[in-house]
């Protein structure tokens, strides 16, 4: 082909393309320019479009479903261009038109969406309210405020009615016209001393059906419950809930859905609390003056939580009143407490400081424990400041200590320190970030030989965490919320070592471990009936354990560590189907990993010697798979809940019989592992009438373990296997100043290993044991009563000084439940139970200024 010929071909091609484009562009305007003559007299729009369609030359297409029928049209067009006719007919209908392939197509406008966001706050104190509901009755959907009171709703442009409520607060309703992004802070008034908002135990959603595998225990309700010696206690309040076992009266153990007491993730403002007990568990470390909200996740565990198998107890401190200064305090037979709160800058920032100190000895001498000089104290402090509309910072601190000083100069001290710095940031109106830097420290020091002439030393155990955590929440729409984030923690673990004066050969090797996790979760509503929450947590645990058996050729110990890394994927799924307006079915599945475990071989759950061991080359991580099905019926604020579950645990560790925890460097070699199975059914009902709240619950559950070399390798009942557990509580609020409550608990007796005989050695009767946990104590039951009398008139809202006196009886009918069994020694008579203390009356006083 010659050059000249090629030039001609190219020119022709270019000319043809040009003609085609001109033709196309010439035709588009031609369709819309065609003249239309049409007269309409009160015609509905669909009919008008039909008439127009018959007049248009060419294709004219639209979906009749999208054409609003309400609009009546009276117009006359005389040879007007089609475009002008369409502009007038479709004005204000949300419809528009396009020309596609010479056809006129009418379609809907893409609706504009706008976001409402803000915070739900306590009107009186400015405290953000966690778990408040922002509900749209017309759409039958809504959202729940997050841990910082923040919410975000993205909706199409329109007018809406919003209904905002929170436990213990009066609800509010507001109409809004959503035509742009807006920020609305809702301020709710607390309903003081009113039962109608007092929730009914764990598992109550903040409103009927929004996001509910979360149970929350309102602090206000906690204060009405009857406690030992009048000490309001978070852990004791949780023990009163359905499905939670304590197994030892007076202890702080929480055994939830077949899990052991070290399998609960207990946090205070996101910081891990490793030993949440004062006085061996009689009182918890949580001062109710400092606490705003407690959330317990014992069914579905969201994927932003990890590290424990059984439950999550997320405790949040109060922020402090950001409008006025207040002081509150009080005393009971166990302790005295004082708190101060107020603004750092009015409505911009606030602080709160609380302190508590024990007052008296408590144990019954019959229990063979006399604590001549034991005390505890704790201090909580928190401050926060709103830097601007998108940024807020918080700092929380906790310090607590127990000290036991006995005759013969023995000392036993233990305590926790936690410190959390947090930064909240909003990206626009739909994305919320919380970034946290967290420190947690637990330590126990025990005098080992204080009363000897040997060189003195102290046995120390402890664990220290440094964490960095980031949590994003993207509020995609009112029915879709995405969360993602991660956490990395450095654990420095001291399982047990003597003070430096002593040879280090008896020390248990130290460990350093990095625990890291990334997670993702998505929560969505499908057709307003089906709620789904699914997520995945991906974790890594890298441990380095000191080796104490590596020496150089000169016999000097070398610093060598043994490294081991584990990975784990943890899917979490929750589905809820709203069968009717007040009924739903739900199902959940969790997989959890736990890389730290508590090494204890105590028969009861009193202990201060908490030795933590991380997973290592010799000790695999624990794992659990959990399934549940449930049915909820919530007619008019009352409640009936039914739940069944099954849980399988893997790599459950137990110590060989009589293993020493102190001065035993080879303790890992005396751990044996196996599996555990738990299953149960829970039912609870509650009824509220004017002034009365009655709750009853029954739980049937079993827990079995099978551990190599324990009980001859045969399956045995776990120490927290309590098959039947019945709880009944009642709260009454009189119209004026009185309130009263009662709590009754009836359970199967605790499992126990009883002797099959005894023999004599060195003047002692030594019991003969076979197996483990083959017997059971008699039924356990106890009734506690309490009453409160408000010395100041609650109707007078503006008074500056409020005070009340509380009194009650713990163990009202003096039931001496068995605590443990021991064989009698020569001169003591027959074999005996040691029992708990009997009836304990108490009185307490509280004030607020």
């Amino acid at each position: 082909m010659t050059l000249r010929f090629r030039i001609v071909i190219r020119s022709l091609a270019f000319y043809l393309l040009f003609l085609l484009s001109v033709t196309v562009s010439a035709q588009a305007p031609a369709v819309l320019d065609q003249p239309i003559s049409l007269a309409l007299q009160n015609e509905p729009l669909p009919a008008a479009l039909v008439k127009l369609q018959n007049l248009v030359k060419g294709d004219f297409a639209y979906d009749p479903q999208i054409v609003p029928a309400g609009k009546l049209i009276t117009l006359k067009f005389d040879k007007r261009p089609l475009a002008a006719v369409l502009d007038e007919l479709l004005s204000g209908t949300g419809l528009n038109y396009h020309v596609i392939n010479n056809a006129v197509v009418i379609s809907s406008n893409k609706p504009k969406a706008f976001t409402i966001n803000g915070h739900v706050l306590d009107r009186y104190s400015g405290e953000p309210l966690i778990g408040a509901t922002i509900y749209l009755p017309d759409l039958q959907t809504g959202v729940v405020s997050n841990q910082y009171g923040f919410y975000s709703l993205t909706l199409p442009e329109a007018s809406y009615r919003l209904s905002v409520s929170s436990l213990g607060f009066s609800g509010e309703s507001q109409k809004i016209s959503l035509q742009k992004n807006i920020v609305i802070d809702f301020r709710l008034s607390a309903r003081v001393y009113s039962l109608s908002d007092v929730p009914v135990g764990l598992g109550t959603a903040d409103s009927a059906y929004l996001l509910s595998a979360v149970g929350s225990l309102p602090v206000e309700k906690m204060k009405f419950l009857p406690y030992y010696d009048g000490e309001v206690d978070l852990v004791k309040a949780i023990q009163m809930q359905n499905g939670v076992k304590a197994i030892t009266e007076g202890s702080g153990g929480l055994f939830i859905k077949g899990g052991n007491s070290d399998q609960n993730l207990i946090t205070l403002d996101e910081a891990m609390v490793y030993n949440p007990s004062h006085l061996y568990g009689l009182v918890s470390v949580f001062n109710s003056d400092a606490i705003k909200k407690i959330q317990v996740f014992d069914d579905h565990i969201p994927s932003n939580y990890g590290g424990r198998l059984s439950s999550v107890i997320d405790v949040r401190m109060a922020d402090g009143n950001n409008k006025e200064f207040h002081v509150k305090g009080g005393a009971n037979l166990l302790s005295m407490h004082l708190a101060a709160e107020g603004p750092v800058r009015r409505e911009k920032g606030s602080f709160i400081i609380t302190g508590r100190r024990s007052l008296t000895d408590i144990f019954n001498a019959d229990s063979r424990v006399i604590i001549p000089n034991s005390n505890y104290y704790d201090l909580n402090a928190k401050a926060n400041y709103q830097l601007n509309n998108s940024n807020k910072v918080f700092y929380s601190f906790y310090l607590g200590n127990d000290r036991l000083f006995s005759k013969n100069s023995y000392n036993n001290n233990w305590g926790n320190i936690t410190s959390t710095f947090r930064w909240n940031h909003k990206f626009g109106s739909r994305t919320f970030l919380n970034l946290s830097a967290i420190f947690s420290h637990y330590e126990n020091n025990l005098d080992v030989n204080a009363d000897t002439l040997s060189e003195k030393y102290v046995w120390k155990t402890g664990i220290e965490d440094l964490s960095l955590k980031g949590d994003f929440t993207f509020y995609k729409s009112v029915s879709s919320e995405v969360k993602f984030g991660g956490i990395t923690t450095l654990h420095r673990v001291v399982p047990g070592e003597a003070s430096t004066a002593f040879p280090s050969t008896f020390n248990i090797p130290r460990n350093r471990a990095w625990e890291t996790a990334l997670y993702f979760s998505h929560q969505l509503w499908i057709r307003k009936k089906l709620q789904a929450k699914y997520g995945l947590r991906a974790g890594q645990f890298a441990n380095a354990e000191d080796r104490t058996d590596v020496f150089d050729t000169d016999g000097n110990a070398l610093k060598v560590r043994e490294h081991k890394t584990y990975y784990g994927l943890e899917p979490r799924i929750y589905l809820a189907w709203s069968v009717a307006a007040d009924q739903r079915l739900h199902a959940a599945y969790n997989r959890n990993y736990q890389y730290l475990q508590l090494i204890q071989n105590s028969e009861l759950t009193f202990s201060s010697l908490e030795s933590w061991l991380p997973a290592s080359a010799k000790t695999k991580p624990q794992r659990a798979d959990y399934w549940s099905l449930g049915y909820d019926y919530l007619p008019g604020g009352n409640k009936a809940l039914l739940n069944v579950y099954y849980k399988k645990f893997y790599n459950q560790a137990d110590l060989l019989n009589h293993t020493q925890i102190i001065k035993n460097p080879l303790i890992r070699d005396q751990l044996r592992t196996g599996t555990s199975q738990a299953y149960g059914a829970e039912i609870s009902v509650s009824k509220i009438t004017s002034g009365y709240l009655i709750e009853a619950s029954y739980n049937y559950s079993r827990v079995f373990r099978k551990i190599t070399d324990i009980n001859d390798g045969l399956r045995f009942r776990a120490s927290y296997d309590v098959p039947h557990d019945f709880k009944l509580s009642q709260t009454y609020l009189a119209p004026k100043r009185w309130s009263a409550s009662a709590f009754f608990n009836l359970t199967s007796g605790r499992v126990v290993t009883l002797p099959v005989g005894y023999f004599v050695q060195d003047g002692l009767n030594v019991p003969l044991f076979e197996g483990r946990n083959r017997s059971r104590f008699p039924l356990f039951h106890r009734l506690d009563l309490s009453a409160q009398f408000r010395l100041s008139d609650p109707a007078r809202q503006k008074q500056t000084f409020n005070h009340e006196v509380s009194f009650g009886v713990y163990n009202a009918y003096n039931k001496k439940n068995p605590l443990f069994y021991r064989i009698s020694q020569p001169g003591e008579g027959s074999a005996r139970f040691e029992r708990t203390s009997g009836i304990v009356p108490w009185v307490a006083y509280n004030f607020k200024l």
Partner: protein
Amino acid sequence: MRNLLCLFLVVMLFPACEKQGNGDITFGAPGKTYGIVVEGGINTFYKIQYIRLSEPSFSADGTVVPAVGARVTVTDGGANVVFRETATPGVYSGTIQNNTNYNKAYKLNITYKDKSYTATDTLRQVVNIIDDFLPLGCIKQANGTIKLTIPKHTFGFLNSCKWLISYPEIPAWNPARFENAGYFNYTHIQGSPNSVYPLINQLRIVELQPNDFVSIYKFSMSDAYSQYLYTVFQETDWKGLFSGVPAEVKGNLSAGALGFFYVTDVDIRRYRASELAN
């Protein structure tokens, strides 16, 4: 509402009517066969040795009965010495000439009711009594008397030993008198089994005249005997709110026999009470 309240009261108070006693808990039925129980062993202080045999009791209110008519021999590394039953039922005695074979094993053989049992323990030399390492406290009182505080258990010593601290109220050590075993006190190389043991520490407190004599006996232990005694005490003296999971106490006897056959070296020193207070 009133009916609900009544129901509530009935449900809560009905269990209160139950009679409270010491409970009807009895021992479980044993699934294993238990043989004999052995107490005692060989000491380096006397040539005549004593061993007590008994049978365990399988009833909480029952008593331990002596095992009579057993055939008992001890091998001291050379000779087989036959122990004969004394006038006290269940107590057997024999003469061991070679009772100072340090770091050597002694072996016990028992035949009782057609069953045979054996045990072995090794003789460890005792660390002599040193004034600075006595398991007792001593204070001179204002009135001139000497107050001794003797804890039954002390921890964190460099070696485990058994002690007998004898003074006018407490008889001198006699290996034949097993009923006096309650006067022993113990030092342990192990740490306290739990954090609250000191609170229920069993003590003897006595006031003596300055010229009263105090005899202190110190008995060595093998590692196995030390560990055995530690587990015995975990199940007995230390049983309390903080004690460990109950479990079988295993001695060094074969074929299901219980107890421990031990070999021990003895050191003795005698003090005036006033010397201890210095």
